[in-house]
């Protein structure tokens, strides 16, 4: 789905086709002059189900958690739930999509999004007619 307005894709606009909840991962975002850094908490997410996409300026991270039910055991007390994680961010800076680094360790996805070098400003000559 292309994002033409530049607005973050609202998650609640449309209902998911999948049965089950969709969670927003808890996220830290900071930047320096070279890059934008994100760390997203995705506990229990299978690394194979992780998806990171950058389309135009919208970065989307998704993943699925839910394979941790021990065989032969039944849940007797629950404080957290399994399901799908999904979150999108609209990036204000131009990002060099080819140099994005992603690492998933201990349930935390760390992304480094290097900023692309701005094109040198071009001066346009205006010729006065007449």
């Amino acid at each position, binding site marked *: 789905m292309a994002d033409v307005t530049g607005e973050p894709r609202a998650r609640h606009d449309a209902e998911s086709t999948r*049965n*089950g*909840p*969709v*969670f*927003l991962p*808890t*996220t*830290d*975002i*900071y*930047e*320096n*002059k070279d890059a*934008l*850094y994100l*760390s997203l*908490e*995705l*506990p*229990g*997410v*299978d*690394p194979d189900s992780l998806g990171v996409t950058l389309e135009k300026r919208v970065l989307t991270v998704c993943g699925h*958690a839910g394979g*941790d*039910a*021990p065989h*032969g*055991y*039944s*849940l*007797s*007390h*629950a*404080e*957290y*739930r399994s399901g799908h994680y999904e979150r999108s961010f609209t990036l204000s800076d131009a990002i060099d999509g080819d140099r994005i680094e992603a690492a*998933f360790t*201990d*349930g*935390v996805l*760390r992304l480094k999004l290097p900023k692309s070098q701005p094109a040198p400003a071009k001066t346009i000559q205006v010729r006065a007619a007449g």
Partner: protein
Amino acid sequence: MVRHGPGADLWGEPLATLRRIQDEINRAFGDQRWTPSAAEFPPVNVWRGPDGVIITAEIPGVKLDAVDLTVHQNTLTLKGSRSPEAFGAETSWHRRERSYGPFSRVIELPYAVDPDKVKASARNGVLIIELPRPEADRPHKISITASS
């Protein structure tokens, strides 16, 4: 929503009923990640089985060797610390949603556990603690001899 007709077989497929209850719970909680009982960090799920109890806890960003587990009789204590990300100077923050700092949780178990038998592992930010039920506490099968 699927409505069951008046003639629906209540006992035929118990899993369908469970699934419907699960769906209703999901709707009631909306997209809430944690249930209202999860006030402390880390949130835990408790699983019971014939061989004992398994506790799973969400500890994103915490290494297994940074977690201190102690078992004393029927009390499990889980301690550790979440350290903030290392970031250089001249950084500006956009969002700070993650929390950091020490944590400690005490969980009461249904039986006294032999500390030597406790196994802990971690996978993708989920801590898995296996607490086998002691032999003495297991139900024993009583053989019945019919007297003629």
